């Protein structure tokens, strides 16, 4: 080999390495995100999530693809939907609500697929994570701990004469069961008598709504997506019985419930998107603490007027949304 040939080798190797590195850097993986959503009401959460992902540079059909199972409308459709999602071997799963997240956690097992959950009342109480600070495992997300307590406190302020409360919950939902414990404690502190309606099905709900005690001053739903399909039934019953209804969805207050206190779907979705971005960038879900969701208070003055209820200005000042106009228009 001539000296000239020998000298050629070094720059050739270097340029080849650079080319290889460039090629490696240039190659862009398509990320797949599986989404499991059981309720139509939570579509805005999915939208918020997608918007946040787009803002962070994940463009659908370019470097990102979604595999969306939802809205499923029934819990029976969950298992096959989750199986289909897992078959796609997604890089990340977004799960909405406690039942969905628990099933995803069980189905994903040790697959290592990271899961971001949201619309979860109590991730510790429902067994999704061991700790908010250090979730461990492959799940992390957004929690709404305390929403039940605060919702009750708001109801107490809005309906000062409240002494007896008709409370709806599903004992089979672990998150509702955990929230119930805190709500009971708060009610006890405020000397509020709780008349509970344990419902598991539509029939149970209809029966409970048909049998609203006359001596209760208000109706209260333990926050959960479980109530979403029974939107009209609850509103009609509250109207018929002229009882203030405290919900946790803005749409319910907009449609006629006296008030709602809970999370905003789009905000939670965006918050989940930010978490997903961190995970996709390489942070382990076990090291990402579960974040607190923001709560929003919505008051319906038309309903209050219909119930002959005067909401003090001091309360109105603290409301995020006040419904004064026809439904569907957020201030």
């Amino acid at each position, binding site marked *: 080999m001539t000296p000239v040939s020998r000298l050629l080798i070094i720059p050739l190797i270097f340029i080849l390495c650079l080319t290889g590195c460039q090629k490696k850097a240039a190659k862009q993986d398509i990320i797949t995100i599986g989404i499991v959503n059981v309720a139509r009401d939570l579509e805005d959460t999915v939208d918020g999530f997608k918007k946040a992902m787009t803002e962070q540079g994940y463009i659908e059909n370019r470097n990102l693809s979604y595999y969306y199972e939802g809205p499923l409308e029934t819990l029976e459709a969950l298992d096959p939907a989750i199986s289909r999602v897992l078959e796609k071997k997604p890089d990340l799963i977004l799960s909405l609500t406690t039942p969905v997240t628990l099933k995803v956690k069980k189905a994903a097992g040790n697959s290592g697929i990271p899961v971001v959950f949201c619309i979860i009342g109590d991730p510790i109480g429902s067994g999704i994570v061991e700790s908010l600070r250090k979730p461990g495992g492959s799940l992390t997300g957004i929690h709404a701990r305390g929403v039940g307590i605060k919702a009750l406190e708001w109801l107490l302020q809005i309906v000062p004469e409240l002494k007896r409360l008709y409370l709806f919950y599903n004992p089979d939902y672990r998150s509702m069961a955990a929230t119930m414990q805190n709500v009971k404690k708060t009610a006890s502190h405020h000397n509020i008598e709780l008349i509970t309606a344990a419902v598991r099905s539509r029939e149970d709900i209809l029966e409970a709504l048909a049998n609203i005690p006359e001596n209760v001053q208000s109706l209260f739903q333990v926050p959960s997506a479980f109530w979403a399909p029974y939107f009209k039934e609850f509103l009609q019953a509250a109207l018929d019985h002229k009882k203030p209804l405290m919900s946790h969805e803005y749409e319910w207050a907009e449609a006629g419930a006296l008030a709602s206190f809970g999370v905003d779907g789009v905000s939670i979705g965006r918050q989940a998107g930010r978490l997903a971005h961190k995970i996709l960038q390489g942070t382990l879900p076990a090291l990402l603490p579960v974040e607190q969701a*923001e709560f929003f208070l919505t008051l319906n003055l038309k309903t209050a007027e219909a119930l002959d209820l005067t909401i003090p200005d001091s309360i109105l000042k603290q409301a995020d949304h006040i419904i004064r106009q026809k439904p569907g228009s957020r201030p």
Partner: protein
Amino acid sequence: MFRTAFMGMALGPLLLVGLLFGWQSVNTQFENAMIHQREVGRRAADNIISFFNAAEDYLLAAILFGDLKNVTPQRQYQIISQAINHKHARYKNMYYDIAIIHCRKGILAYASLYGESSVACFLTHFRVEEFLPYICSGRRYYGPVSFDELTGEPLMTIAIPMVDLRSGEVWGALAVNIRINTIWQIVGDIKVGRSGKVYVVDQQNRVVAHPDPSVVLRGTLFNVPEKEGQARGLSGDPSILVIDTLSIEGQTFYLIAEQPLKEALSFTVTMLLQIFIVILLALLVSLLFALWTERHMIKPIELIAKQALRIGAGDLSQRIELERQDELGRLAGAFNTMAAELDSTIASLEQEVAERKRTAIELEAVNSELEDFAYIVSHDLKAPLRGVSQLAGWIAEDYADAIDEEGRNHIRLLLNRVKRMHGLIDSVLEYSKAGRIREKVTDVDLAALMQEVIEELSPADNVRIVVENCPQSIAAERTRLKQVIQNLVDNAVKYMDKKKGLVEIDCASEAAYWRFSVSDNGPGIARKYHEKIFHIFQTLSPRNQTENTGVGLSLVKKIVETFGGRVWLKSQEGKGSTFFFTWPKKTGENNEK
């Protein structure tokens, strides 16, 4: 070695300049990055201080406008509930919880943003024993950052003393736990390059504010370097850190603007990399060109040169095998053609030399035969002539009385003829010898030679022979030189027709030759005979008038030309003639025809 040295000398300065330029660029960009980060950090610090000021201002407003001491507990709760749930977009949800604390009565009201607004919860979040004595003495309190056990959220207690306007005494405090995560948005809004960040670390090296909430929520620790500049950042990567110290009512925070070193210097690094790649590419192209040149030009030239040297050394069988259509191919072809022609020429020359050698041998043989022949012929011819002469002599002697005058005349004529024949044979013999018989070259004393010639010729008294300008001696074959001069002078004397005859012998030096001339003032020779007179047996006058064999001038010509000279004459009828001849100064040069 030359090529290596040359490349080293060409590349060395280039690389040195590149290194110096790169170093300077890196330093400049480093400084610029620090300046930018310092500005960013200052902006973040201003916003953070503004946040704490706003947090305090809200509390002061609640104290000022709420008249908290004189209202009912329910009203107190409403006021602090409004304070905690205020909808100011900029600092929404900045308080985690809030409490009105009486210096003697304890907690009067408590509200929480997320937790239960009950007195029981108050105690878990407020270290009342720490700040109440502080507050009740009229001082503001800013506590260290603490982390909620359940959520890990960083909180900071601020307590503002409340003063009775009439007595001027401190009756209580309005205390809040500020959610430090409100500052997360502040630092999150500030960009430091593409991946740089601004974050806040407290005195216990805990990260309390960071664009990534999880960094704070998992209790990340960071040892703040003593000096800003290049250091390992929060990410662990080499970074540029600019550190600003915030003192808020006795609590110290470190606001750090961090940018990865790789990113901060990316422009310079990219530029240097591009320059390096360009240099490498240029080097690669140069090397490729050098390789091509070496292969397609230098090696063929070296091959041609090597083969040419071999051909030059005598190996004419070598051929340059270079099948190309370009100039080098044509050059190689020309060399091959030259070698072939040289080979052929040398072969021809060798053949010619061999032939000449054969010819020379034959010539020598012939010469030898001719010499023998000439000797034999002259001897055999002379013998009868002697016999005839002797017989004629005897007859003239023995029968003198019996022969009349006419008879005696015939015998005299006969004897003359015999004598002439004798002379002719000798002349022919001499002519044949001339050019063949060589003698040793010696330094011939010309004066002595001329004198010898004159004495042997014994010219008549009316003829004077003069020798002028001749050198002392010249290197020559004496016999041949004498023959030439003698024949020319003899002719001049023989044919002198003047009463006072003059024969002048002159010499002159001409480069490689001596030029002799023999001039006479005789009858001269017509121009038409200037060539003819040098032919053998040619005479201008009848032999019965002048005894002449007709061989003399031809002999002169033959001898002179044998030695490489030439002979010619100038003559004017009636006035005289001058015969010239040249004789080489060095024998051996120009004397071979």
